[in-house]
């Protein structure tokens, strides 16, 4: 029976909603409020000038859970569900308003890659500084220095100021320091949202390693495939409350089904804030069923179209829309890009484009699929749009006997569920000297 590494009881965090969006007040406001209060005391009949808005918000409300030593737990939920607030309380950045947490062991928090780095310092200097900020002892940093440099792959630039680093190098170095912190309990917030694909893979591998070393990991991510791969268990938060706690893939699937998370269609009506850059911006990503309707659930026997709707703002780029489709275990089922299209590798004029990848029926297995949409150029490779978990859909088998399942209703393994053609040869059982039976049809027919 593993021991408990973390026990949260009835955690609550209340925030006051101030007048200023950015949370701070000026002395004048405070003085005026005091004065107003005095005036109110003498003239209580003053009518309220404005309708009263709620002035407080429970960002976290009555959250209780336990995590065993060595367990990896994912925390999911919409933006504003309280995920970050929870990690901030666990990492002691902020105090809970009520409830308590018991933690066994050293806690390391990685809430932002690159936090604590100073642009004017060199790479080597920053390793020391950030190590100290993360709570490493000087001797510990010195001992791990080479390993950190090795992991980061920036050994040639150790004496270069970090402000001259590319963002990729910066991220690699920052993550390398954090990855060598050896806490008993590791708290990670959306760190994998940054960096290029190969770097993300490296981070994931390192995270898996951390988990396999028996450390306790709490992990927030919108990257649901990665989360299901890293975590055995997940907690779903919604408006500050814990609504579901269970095996990661089940909680992720429930989250997607509930509509709390990703949906079948996502649109960015405001081009300026849409994913993308000055060359191209994403307008929408949609899942369409065989009838052309946006749908979150599709029939396993019928085709499904994944639609990428984008606007080219700058002409002359050979833009290639592509889609990465993950299943609920976090395995990438396939990647598809617009190869089979008249627009393949043609410089596109400005305009609005809608392109669809048609996935045939009887191809995907039942379950939830999460789609990441990208728009890239290939030579040189550059990613202009990358929208993680843009849409999700479910493939459903209605068990009518004409899918790959046939009449079998039980658990049906397999990453894909194609309905293959089977060929059968029957040879009569004759006692004699017939030669070996010949197939009735050849393979290429």
């Amino acid at each position, binding site marked *: 029976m593993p021991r408990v590494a973390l026990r949260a009881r009835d955690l609550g965090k209340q925030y006051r909603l101030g007048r200023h969006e950015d*949370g701070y007040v000026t002395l004048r406001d405070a003085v005026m409020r005091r004065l107003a209060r005095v005036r109110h005391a003498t003239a209580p009949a003053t009518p309220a000038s404005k309708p009263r808005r709620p002035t407080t918000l429970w960002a976290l409300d009555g959250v209780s859970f336990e995590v065993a030593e060595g367990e990896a737990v994912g925390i999911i939920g919409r933006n504003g569900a309280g995920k970050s607030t929870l990690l901030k309380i666990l990492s*002691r950045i902020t*105090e809970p*308003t009520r409830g308590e947490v*018991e933690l066994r062991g050293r806690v390391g*928090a990685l*809430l*932002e890659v690159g*936090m604590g780095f100073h642009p004017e310092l060199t790479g080597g200097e920053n390793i020391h500084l950030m190590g100290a900020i993360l709570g490493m002892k000087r001797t510990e940093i010195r001992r791990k220095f080479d390993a950190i440099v090795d992991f980061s792959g920036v050994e040639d630039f150790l004496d270069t100021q970090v402000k001259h680093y590319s963002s990729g190098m910066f991220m690699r170095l920052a993550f390398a320091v954090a990855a060598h912190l050896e806490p008993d309990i590791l708290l990670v917030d959306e760190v994998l949202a940054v960096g290029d694909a190969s770097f993300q893979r490296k981070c994931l591998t390192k995270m898996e390693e951390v988990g396999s070393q028996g450390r306790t990991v709490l992990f927030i991510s919108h990257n649901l495939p990665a989360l299901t791969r890293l975590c055995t268990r997940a907690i779903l938060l919604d408006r500050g409350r814990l609504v579901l706690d269970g095996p990661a893939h089940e909680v992720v699937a429930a989250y997607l089904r509930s509509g709390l998370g990703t949906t079948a269609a996502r649109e960015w009506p405001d081009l300026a804030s849409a994913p993308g850059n000055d060359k191209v911006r994403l307008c929408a990503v949609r899942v369409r069923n065989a009838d052309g309707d946006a749908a979150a659930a599709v029939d396993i026997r019928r085709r499904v179209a994944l639609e990428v709707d984008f606007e080219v703002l700058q002409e002359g780029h050979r833009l290639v829309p592509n889609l990465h489709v993950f299943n609920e275990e976090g395995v990438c089922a396939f990647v598809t890009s617009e190869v089979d299209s008249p627009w393949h590798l043609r410089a596109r004029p400005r305009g609005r484009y809608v392109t669809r990848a048609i996935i045939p029926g009887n191809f995907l297995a039942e379950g939830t699929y999460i789609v990441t949409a990208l728009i890239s150029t290939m030579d040189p490779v550059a990613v202009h749009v990358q929208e993680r978990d843009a849409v999700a859909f479910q493939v459903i088998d209605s068990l009518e006997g004409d899918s790959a399942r046939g009449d079998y209703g039980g658990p049906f393994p397999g990453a894909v569920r194609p309905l293959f053609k089977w060929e059968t040869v029957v040879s009569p059982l004759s006692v004699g000297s017939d030669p070996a039976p010949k197939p009735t049809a050849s393979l290429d027919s």
Partner: protein
Amino acid sequence: MLSMAGPSANTLTEPDSKPIFLIRPGSSRIGPRLAEVWRHRELLLFLAWRDLRVRYRQTALGVAWAILQPVLTMLILSIIFGRLVGVPSGGIPYPLFALAGLLVWQLFSFALTSSAGSLVANERLMTKIYFPRLVLPIASVLSGLVDFALGLAILSGLQIAYGVHLGWQLLTVPLFAVLAAGAALAVGIGLSALNVRYRDVKHALPFLAQFWMLCSPVVYPSSLIPQAWQPVYALNPMVGAVEGFRWSLFGQGPVPWSLLAVSTTVVVSGLVISLVYFLSVESTLADVI
């Protein structure tokens, strides 16, 4: 079972060696929190080292600025107050007199300004990682001490050039540096937390520093203040710090005991008040900033 790799394996497989933390609202008391600052002393030094490295980076003159600033100010003051106004300096050449005052003053004003702004300047750290927040204002004072030490070397050189005697009193210089830094912290710690909530501090600070300088014997000797006002004047801890520093350099007269006692008492009580305020709001700082 735990299976750990690495040199920390021994400590972690030992079942009862892991510290247990309890997080609950308003649980922390002042004593343990000061102890925690002490445990984070390496971080404190690292942050001070960072400030020092960064301050003069990408400047053509580099660390020479730490010397140029007080020396150039000294030259101007010597012309205006030494020559034109004729401020008495008790038998000490006015440039030496002024530079001594300026060095302690700049230590104080740098420490005050940077500690008061330290929390806001490190906003990203404050919202992304936990460490005792008190480390920030304290660390920001430390790098000022290095500038002070450099200035002191120049001043001693000048003193030898002027043929002014250097005595055993020089050994007491660190005491007055600590007194000045302590006076800055006594105000700066409280202001740093206040600045998180009320950015007015940022605007009030330059005015406060200027006003304070006029109330301290930097460009004039404290003997110019009428006798009747001396007790009130002495409540400004910088009076003790500046006069004490001059005494340790020029060795004139008896040890200024009473002045020092008053200054130290004021600084210590200021520090206590500042710390109590700081620690009472510390847990909410990350929410407000």
